[in-house]
């Protein structure tokens, strides 16, 4: 038996057999993840791409391929253009507010020993609450005549502001609510980042003469938080870009289209007007933006913030 095994032919075949088994095992391990990826992401994405090239309407029995007509229509549509611009303005307000506000809170409560967890809970509460329910509360708070915010303004001698029904303030108000909701989550991420900075570095900085608050922040905290900050910026951007629920519940795109945003228009086209093909094209545009944000993270920023 052993002698027979030693012939070169059999050695080669047993090695091949082992390689084959290894390959099959490898595929076997990868298969479940691959299957899930195909079922939940790749297949729907393919369907989306196909739909975006048709004039399919929800409930319709037939469909025609219209090529890129949906995309042409979208790019020419002033409502879509406005909603895209509104979304970008919303992102531009929410990202700095949500990132730097959270950073400030994280730095303030990081060194607290006894009260830290209390503050963590307080700031994290909005994250756990349902925004739809909270939107009602915000609507009451900001109500022009009944709301306590305007009550305060009046008490201070200012004219009341119709936050949500004034075209110039509605979008900014929604952005503030968005910041309020994401602040706690970003704060937790920053706290984790701060905890990961070794204490030694602050002590070395202390000895090297870098002991003022501004110096410490600029020399150590801010650069070492780079990876965290990048992650927070990207996730906040994507979250902001997906603004939908406050619009749907509080303003419905109004007043005068000042809070029309991309996702809300997709919702209207797809689920109110049943223009499924057109909605698919809009969704494709939406995904392209998300892709740009993610690519920015992977290729551009990644190299700069890691050390």
């Amino acid at each position, binding site marked *: 038996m052993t002698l027979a095994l030693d012939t070169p032919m059999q050695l080669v075949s047993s090695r091949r057999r082992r390689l084959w088994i290894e390959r099959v095992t490898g595929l076997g391990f990868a298969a479940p993840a691959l299957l899930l990826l195909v079922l939940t992401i790749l297949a729907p994405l393919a369907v989306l791409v196909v739909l975006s090239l048709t004039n399919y309407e929800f409930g319709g029995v037939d469909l025609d391929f219209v090529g890129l007509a949906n995309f042409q229509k979208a790019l020419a549509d002033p409502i879509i253009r406005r909603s895209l611009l509104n979304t970008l303005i919303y992102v531009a307000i929410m990202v700095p507010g949500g990132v730097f506000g959270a950073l400030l809170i994280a730095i303030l409560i990081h060194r607290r020993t006894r009260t830290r967890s209390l503050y963590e809970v307080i700031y994290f509460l909005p994250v756990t609450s349902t925004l739809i329910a909270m939107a009602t509360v915000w609507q009451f708070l900001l109500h022009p005549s009944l709301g306590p915010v305007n009550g305060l303004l009046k008490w201070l001698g200012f004219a009341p502001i119709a936050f949500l029904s004034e075209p110039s303030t509605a979008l900014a108000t929604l952005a503030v609510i968005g910041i309020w909701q994401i602040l706690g989550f970003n704060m937790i991420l920053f706290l984790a980042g701060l905890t990961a900075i*070794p204490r*030694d*570095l602050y*002590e*070395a*900085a*202390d*000895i*090297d*003469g*870098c*002991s*003022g608050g*501004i*110096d410490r922040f*600029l*020399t*150590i905290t801010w*650069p*070492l938080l*780079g990876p965290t900050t990048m992650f927070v910026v990207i996730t906040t951007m994507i979250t902001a870009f997906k603004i939908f629920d406050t619009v749907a519940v509080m303003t419905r795109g109004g007043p005068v289209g000042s809070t029309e945003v991309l996702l809300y228009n997709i919702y209207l086209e797809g689920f109110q007007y049943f223009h499924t093909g057109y909605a698919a094209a809009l969704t494709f545009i939406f995904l392209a933006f998300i892709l740009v944000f993610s690519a920015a993270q992977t290729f551009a920023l990644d190299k700069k913030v890691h*050390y």
Partner: protein
Amino acid sequence: MATVTLSSIAKSFGPTRVLGGVDLDIADGEFLTLVGPSGCGKSTLIRIIAGLEHQDGGAVTIGGQPVDHLRPHERRVAMVFQSYALYPHMSVRQNIALPLTMSRLKLWQRLPLLRALSGQRRAVMRGIEADVAAAAAQLQLDHLLDRKPAQLSGGQRQRVALGRAMVRHPDVFLMDEPLSNLDAKLRVHMRTELAELHKRLGATFIYVTHDQVEAMTMSDRVAMMDSGTILQLGTPSQLYEKPGSLKVAQFIGSPAINLLPASVGAGGRLELFGRPMSLTVQQPQGQAMTLGVRSEALSLVQGEPAGAGRAWFSARLRRKENLGSEYILHFDLAGRDLPGVTMRTSPAQAASVAEAAEVTLGFDEAACHLFAADGERIEPRGPGVASASIVPLRA
């Protein structure tokens, strides 16, 4: 250059007393090592000198000036951390330059954007650049200046940490276990480098370690600490040849000192394993004592064990350890429930003993250390005691 004086430094963390009134005078340009087991308070002490920790009682003066109210960087001390604490996002050049940029540029000249407005900034930066280059050259770091700490080996990081400490010419260097993270070979190399650096700079070095070899090889003086107090302060050879207590004797020296139980017999005469020695003490009869014998003081006794001023006992060889130039022999004490003893000897001597062989080990009574039950060193009286020298180790 400066002296460092500590007077009755006390420190507690909550209910735990870490330092119980430490007094220490460190001379200008001295290399002083604080050595002791972990948790003995040596790191806390050096951190108090640095100003990273505040003492509950007592005072620190550097160069004759009280520094207790000063922030760390105002004390003109530099510190090398065990983890090196290099700034990971900065290049070696920036790491070394940081203490200088902090002291030579004003805050607004360091701020982004605003600093572009400063006319002098460029001249100051050139000066800093030159000083960094000089420090880097001393430590052979020139070719690494543009690397990040993550791209360096442990020894190189260690040198960068030294460079950052050196660059602003501090009066006192504080080093908190700087070699602990290096591998054994590099540690031996860095010991020499540190000792030479000390000689070259002439600054005061305060060095914390738990490794008695580092303490013995580099220091002018060693302060052996335990439980928040200094047990003994002296030169390395004083600590080795005249340990003031059992704890010091056990901590200093490798292999560790051999401890044998002795007792006081009639007339104050010491007895080892029931045999009277020629040493006498003032302790009352029947008192238990501990006899310490360094491994190089033991020797194999051939034939008659007798001889004036020499003690002996029998043992069985358990294991030989070959160190190349010498052997460490591990013996069990035959028939006694005691930890064994070690003997340092030449390869030739070691070859003469077979494994598991019963032998007689002897030592010069003048070379042994005597400790009372409370661990205090006792000076015995008796022949040959006047010269407390160590017997040459090689037969």
